[in-house]
């Protein structure tokens, strides 16, 4: 089959749109393989704007892993802004990959990584632009198999009409298994058509094919039963887990765009998984157990990545980077290695812990101390016990004060509001805390030139967490709490002017909540919103709350449920949840007990240090914690200055 580049027809359109560079590809380390040299063609999509999608680590990893296979190629595609989408429709140019500008329609597979549910409408837009039928059942052998991945794929039910499969868990190995299945099926002359291919894929560990599972509902609107419709697919689909991160040092050649992106740095994932047990955190729950990359593995990835990219900054990525068993030594040895080279090292937002200030000092000793970010998440000690992210107010103030005393001028504090059991008082404590932090910080640093930024957003309960049963706070509740918080911060101008407040109103969170804990009936809402012009829902200038609420009211009414039913309703213990047949390894009873512990403000430890508390993941998945210390150290490395 000849697949032609769409570029000649795209190019005249690019002269008429904003930021055309995002559509031309040609990034450093991008790869283009000849179409006819390989059996299996993957288009990988991040369903948001290029500037957001390009730095995505997951997509970069799969892009390399697939392109390393001699029998496969992978190209990337991103959501197209409305200005270009309009011109593409007008001129009959389909959704294209940025690598070789090949039509997405012609690929064997379209893998879509959903970090957030707000990307769902962008999937529909891309399918429509590609000329692929929106509904999986309407596709034939000539259409790509649409595969959803990423954290949101742990409940793909709301998009189950539109995707052919969802992949649970780590992607590195499963994309290879899927490639093998597709290659064999094509080689055999596509026996049994698309249905047979999907049936074969459904037998790959970690692959869920929604069409082979039937969902029925009871009179009260809850799920009555989820039954498989074929005997040869598993009753429950378990997630995939990659063990030994050192064997998967990807991305080896991170992509470097010409266009500006949201992360102007390279990242090295220093470990995967987290067992801190923060009850709101879906990432921490679904990525267990903790698997560390070794200090030497990290050292060589940092070195190779910097050489391959020319970036000036390296982020040491994970869900809680200071918890790496060798982080102190790692920070020191990396700082030693890059001293005098204008190379910055950074940790993403960290737990509130004095040790993190020490680490940040070490990492920044070659550069500027501008801002430090902590994530206490809950405003009061009480609510922090509920979410299992315990830190006392004294420790919090002391830690932040230490940061100011060490020359950090700006501290950012991340919070959530609308957490289970929360009251106005819990949120108002954020203001007290910020005021105290500034007072103590001015004293400790001897300067008035310090700032504290409070960043706060509404909490959205997520599947596979202890809060999956919780009632989500309404948009009105969130907005009210944000309002009283703002007033409290502004009450004393002399202090308040050193405190910044950044917040998101409660409305997008409600829609995210609908999509997060929704079932298959929510698919009609998504489709309706897209048909009414909805896309780029993660962008406030494109998000329309009214479009969503109207669509939800009208499309859900025939089922006797509504937006509130999905969001502000607390679930009961034995309700069948839409994702119960998808197995993250977490034991549902343990999750329920942890939810009850949350309500009674009981904390749980971290199994790395306090022993196993039977969350269920390791025995179910046949995995184990992989942590150091390894006792190794970074070899001296000659660095060009």
């Amino acid at each position, binding site marked *: 089959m000849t697949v032609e580049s769409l570029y000649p027809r795209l190019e005249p359109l690019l002269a008429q749109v904003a*930021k*055309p560079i995002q559509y031309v590809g*040609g990034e450093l380390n991008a790869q283009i393989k000849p179409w006819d040299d390989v059996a299996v063609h993957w288009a990988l999509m991040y369903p948001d704007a290029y500037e957001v999608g390009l730095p995505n680590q997951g997509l970069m990893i799969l892009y390399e892993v697939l392109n390393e296979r001699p029998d496969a190629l992978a190209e990337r595609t991103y959501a197209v802004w409305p200005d270009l989408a309009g011109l593409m429709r007008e001129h009959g140019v389909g959704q294209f990959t940025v690598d070789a500008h090949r039509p997405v329609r012609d690929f064997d597979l379209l893998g879509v990584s959903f970090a957030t549910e707000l990307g769902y409408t962008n999937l529909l837009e891309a399918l429509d632009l590609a000329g692929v039928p929106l509904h999986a059942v309407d596709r034939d052998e000539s259409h790509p198999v649409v595969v959803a991945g990423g954290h949101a794929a742990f409940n793909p039910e709301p998009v189950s009409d539109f995707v052919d499969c969802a992949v649970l868990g780590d992607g590195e190995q499963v994309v290879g298994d899927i490639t093998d299945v597709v290659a064999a099926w094509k080689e055999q002359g596509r026996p049994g058509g698309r249905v047979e291919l999907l049936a074969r894929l459904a037998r790959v560990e970690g692959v869920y094919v929604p069409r082979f599972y039937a969902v029925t509902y009871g009179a009260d609107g809850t799920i009555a039963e989820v039954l498989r419709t074929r005997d040869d697919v598993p009753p429950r689909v378990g997630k995939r887990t990659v063990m030994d991160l050192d064997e998967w040092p990807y991305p080896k050649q991170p992509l*470097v765009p*010409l266009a500006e992106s949201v992360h102007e740095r390279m990242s090295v994932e220093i470990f995967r998984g987290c067992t801190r047990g923060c009850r709101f955190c879906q990432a921490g729950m679904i990525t267990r157990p903790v698997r560390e990359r070794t200090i030497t593995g990290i050292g060589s990835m940092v070195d190779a990545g910097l050489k*391959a990219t020319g*970036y000036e900054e390296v982020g040491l990525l994970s869900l809680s980077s200071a918890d790496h068993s060798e982080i102190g030594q790692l920070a020191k040895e990396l700082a030693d290695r890059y001293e005098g080279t204008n190379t910055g090292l950074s940790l993403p937002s960290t737990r509130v812990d004095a040790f993190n200030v020490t680490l940040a000092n070490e990492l920044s000793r070659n550069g500027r101390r501008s801002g430090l970010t902590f994530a206490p998440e809950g405003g009061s000690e009480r609510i922090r016990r509920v979410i299992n992210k315990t830190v006392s107010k004294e420790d919090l103030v002391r830690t932040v004060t230490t940061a100011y005393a060490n020359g950090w001028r700006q501290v950012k504090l991340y919070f959530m509001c609308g957490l289970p059991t929360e009251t106005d008082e819990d949120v108002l404590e954020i203001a007290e805390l910020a005021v105290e932090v500034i007072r103590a910080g001015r004293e400790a640093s001897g300067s008035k030139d310090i700032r504290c930024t409070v960043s706060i957003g509404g909490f959205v309960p997520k599947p596979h967490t202890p809060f999956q049963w919780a009632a989500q706070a309404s948009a009105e509740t969130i907005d009210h709490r944000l309002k009283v918080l703002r007033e409290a911060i502004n009450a004393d101008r002399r202090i308040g002017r050193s405190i910044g407040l950044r917040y998101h109103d409660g409305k997008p969170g409600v829609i995210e909540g609908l999509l997060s804990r929704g079932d298959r009936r929510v698919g009609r809402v998504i489709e309706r919103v897209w048909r009414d012009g909805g896309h780029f829902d993660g962008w406030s200038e494109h998000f329309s709350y009214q479009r969503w609420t109207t669509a939800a009211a009208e499309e859900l009414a025939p089922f006797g449920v509504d937006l509130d039913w999905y969001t502000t309703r607390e679930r009961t213990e034995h309700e069948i949840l839409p994702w119960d047949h998808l197995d993250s390894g977490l034991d549902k009873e343990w999750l329920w007990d942890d939810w009850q512990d949350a309500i009674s403000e009981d904390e749980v430890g971290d199994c790395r240090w306090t022993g196993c508390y039977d969350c269920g993941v390791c025995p179910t998945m046949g995995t184990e914690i992989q942590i150091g210390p390894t006792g190794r150290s970074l070899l001296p490395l000659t660095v060009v200055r």
Partner: protein
Amino acid sequence: MARQPDGPPPPPTVQKLRLRYTKRGPLRFASHRDLARALERALRRAQVPMAFSAGFSPHPKISYMGAAPTGAASEAEYFEIGLSERRDPEQVRVALDASLPPGIDVLECVEAGEGAGSLADRLDATRWRIDLPGVDADELARAVQALLAAETVPVTKRTKNGTKDVDARAAVVSAAVAVEAGCAILHVVVRQLTPTVRPDDVMAALAAVADLRPPLPARAVREAQGRLDDSGDVADPLGPDRDASSRCQGEPAQV
């Protein structure tokens, strides 16, 4: 007094290099900020010993000048870098070229001549080639005549702060029409005034004087950039640096 970082100041600039590079193919859609990022990263990958500014946020010593607009290709973009150690200009050119994506090609690299003056001062005109697919060459020629015959041709530019009127005619030094492979081509030399008159402003002027409206987007290439010489052509802006370095034998460049 402003806070200063601890430790010694960064090493000083010991050599200034001036480079010419291209913006070809799909990379014509890169903005000047995109190019600046790409060049800075390529300098790091190529391990060019850049000099840095002092302060808490040290920046490599790079000056960009006269960037072609987003969407226009170029054979003649220029920038200047300060090095903390001396290097052979040709070796820097080769190493940097190898680290840049295809389409951004480093064509020349010369050492700034002692007393040869600033490079920015030598970039006061551009020779553009504008391909106009679907436009009739005779119609284009008539439009160009009308433009050259006019005293002033105000066109409205869209800027960040709204719109601004600029006299496109005043910037046009010369204009000629050719045909290549059936496509009408406008060769035009434009003075770089403030605000800059760009190829799309020239096209707006042709629309204003003769209602010329191309059916397809025009494709512009900056063929040369430099000082306007007496004959109305654009002179090589690196010439004075080359002359200066051939005059003085100087110390041998270190590899």
